[in-house]
């Protein structure tokens, strides 16, 4: 009687490797998708600190209405999408300038009253100063407050970072943006015909800038 042989199933190591890659793909992809979508509603740390310091210093209750973050990738996609549209040169320059933008909108809860605007500004100045931001503008009129902060590391038109606060009676708006102002400068200086006269340094001339290509069409 012949001995029966049990069938065996064998997988090579390369097949295990491909299986691992597929499993990782199916697990990691949803996680990345969730992270990507939630990043649109998550502010960066400096903007969050600005908002938090204002809320704490106000000693009032605020209800979040909106938080939106357009990061570098999204702004790049927008720039690419709008690049072929027949817009005015100034509009093109403005679109080309923005690299990142975020905004947060809060509304005062019914029955709450914010504290003194001067005290709020002073507290926020201290927090932002520790994070390397200088307040450039502060305006107070009645119940309204406007403040603009600029990163202390700003030394070039190619990378300007700023945060802005607008506080009205019941609304608090915190916004921040990073921009490359070279396209806008090119637009303004071209309009005034100053480029040839000024012979700007390479940092400002932007001879290979995207704006010039659109201005010529």
């Amino acid at each position, binding site marked *: 009687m012949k001995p029966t042989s049990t069938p065996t199933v064998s997988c090579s190591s390369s097949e295990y490797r491909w299986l691992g890659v597929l499993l990782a793909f199916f697990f990691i992809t949803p996680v990345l998708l969730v992270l990507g979508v939630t990043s649109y509603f998550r502010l960066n740390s400096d903007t969050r600190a600005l908002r938090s310091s204002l809320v704490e210093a106000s000693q009032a209750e605020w209800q979040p209405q909106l938080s939106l973050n357009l990061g570098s990738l999204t702004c790049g996609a927008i720039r690419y999408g709008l690049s072929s549209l027949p817009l005015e040169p100034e509009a093109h320059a403005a679109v080309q300038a923005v690299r990142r933008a975020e905004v947060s909108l809060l509304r005062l809860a019914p029955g709450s009253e914010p504290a003194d605007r001067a005290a709020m500004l002073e507290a926020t100045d201290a927090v932002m100063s520790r994070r390397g931001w200088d307040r450039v503008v*502060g305006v107070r009129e009645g119940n309204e407050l406007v403040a603009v902060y600029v990163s202390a*590391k700003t*030394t070039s038109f190619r990378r300007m970072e700023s945060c802005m606060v607008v506080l009205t009676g019941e609304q608090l708006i915190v916004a921040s943006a990073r921009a490359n102002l070279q396209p806008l400068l090119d637009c303004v200086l071209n309009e005034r015909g100053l480029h040839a006269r000024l012979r700007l340094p390479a940092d400002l001339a932007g001879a290979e800038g995207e704006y010039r290509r659109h201005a010529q069409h």
Partner: protein
Amino acid sequence: MKRLMILPLVLAGLAAGYSVRAETSGGEVDFGKFSAPGKGSEFVEVQIKSNLLSLAAQLVEKEEPQAAKLLRSVRMVRVNVVGLTDENRDAMEKRIARIGRELDQQGWERNVNVQGKEGEDVGVYTKTRGGEALEGVAITVLDPKHLVLVNVVGDIRPDQIAALGESLHIKHLKEVGTAIKQND
């Protein structure tokens, strides 16, 4: 061994000395804090430091080299504008008088003093360093509707201010520069 112990102390002392010198600036003026303005009035503060000023200097360098040179010699510009109302007018007038007294005590010179027909009061104070350069300029303007306080800190030469006024055709700036230069 003793040298190894002394060295950190010496370094700490130098660092402390450096930090004290870095924190205090002779040309900077403390105008004080301003409480919330009353209804109908406003408070505006603009403060620009050297990093932004150097950007502005880059923009105007070719067209206005004198202006660019002046901008580069400035470390900070601060402007305060306070709207005057019946509620805060007395307090602001006392504040401006106190600022003038404090500047006198701290060794500032009052170079320009203008009293206008409609109650304007303009004062320009300067603090020199080494007899050649201005460490700071403080300008106080009081008119019926506003109090304006300006502080410029840097290493400013009076002839730069006059030259800037000449090139920009700003008569008052030229006069200020000339007055400062004559008083030095």
